[in-house]
């Protein structure tokens, strides 16, 4: 588990336009610069927001990756629930899910 590396990548992507461009044009080399596990690299490369959430990424980093991928807010929320349904509870960090799968506390 290299949650730190995954979160650092998200931090760089969120605030650096150069990293955002490289994610689209030079992705393999960009992701090679971070000590990810195969699971983490694959989750990021495929934009699997649900799995990244389960791996423990801080939501304040993850929600901007989702926005960068073009996911509307309700889809972002849904993908995290789907991630928990598929992979089980959040494995690290302080952003665990505490509501029921279909609770939709904000209607989305």
């Amino acid at each position, binding site marked *: 588990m290299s949650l*730190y590396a995954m979160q*650092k990548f998200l931090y760089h992507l969120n605030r650096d336009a150069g990293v955002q461009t490289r994610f689209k044009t030079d992705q393999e080399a960009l992701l090679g610069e971070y000590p990810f596990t195969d699971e983490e690299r694959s989750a990021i490369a495929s934009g699997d927001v649900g799995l990244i*959430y389960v791996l423990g990424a801080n*939501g304040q980093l993850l929600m901007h990756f989702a*926005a960068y991928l073009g996911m509307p807010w309700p889809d972002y929320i849904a993908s995290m629930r789907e991630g928990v349904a598929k992979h089980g509870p959040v494995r690290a960090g302080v952003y665990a899910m*505490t*509501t029921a799968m279909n609770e939709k506390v904000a209607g989305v």
Partner: protein
Amino acid sequence: MSLVFAGVCSHAPGITGRAHLADPALRDPFHAAFRAMGDELRATKPDALVLVGAEHFGNFFMNNMPAYAIGMGAEYSGPIEDSAWIGIAKTRIPGNPDLSQRLITEVLQTVDVSFAEEWLLDHGLIVPLNFLTPNYDLNIIPVNINCQGPPLTPLHRAWAFGEALRRAADSVPERIAIIATGGISHWPATPDSGKINVEWDREFMARWARNDREALLAYSDADIYRDAGQGGFEIRTFISLAAAARGAGAIRHFQPIPIFSVTCTLGVMEVI
């Protein structure tokens, strides 16, 4: 006395970015009250606005995380977020590095604060500014309390930091306004987003309005996480403000709006 205004406010990105998803009957009075607090703030003719926030990795990360940081730039910019996503255009906000340096020097007498000549605003500061100083024409001094990457500073240190900010404001001839911004209970950016513990929020704001130091500092982080979520750690900013202002607080707005993820809160505090 050079502290001329003290207040607290919410800063959730949904307040602007998801405004279109909110019930206008809840959204519009909150937005109007937010702008009115800006009018009230600017009527006190401050020379600078010290904006105490709890950023979400706009500048600081776990490679080198300061518990407390103060901006010392001539200019700041933001939002770091996509403008369409947050509903706020990219902008520049003026700073005053000379004033920052004097404030930081005084704060350092009691709190080992970091300083930063570069500072990118995330929603935690730009959402409040969007309502309080919509022309972005008032000098700001951004301040951060780490509420994101544990281990976090203890609540009693947040109080001491507020006392230091007050001492610093009193030590300069400029007229200083101070706004602290954070959520109360919330579970942001998770599937729980929109969950709000209104009773906890009401109790916390009652303690804040009484400026009851002992009651404000009585929470443990384990209690906060259980009852108010990871977003609740941001009460540190409200606690610092209470220590800086010293007076009684008046709650101007208190309305849970789930699509904004928080009880949307505005308050001003008497400076004594």
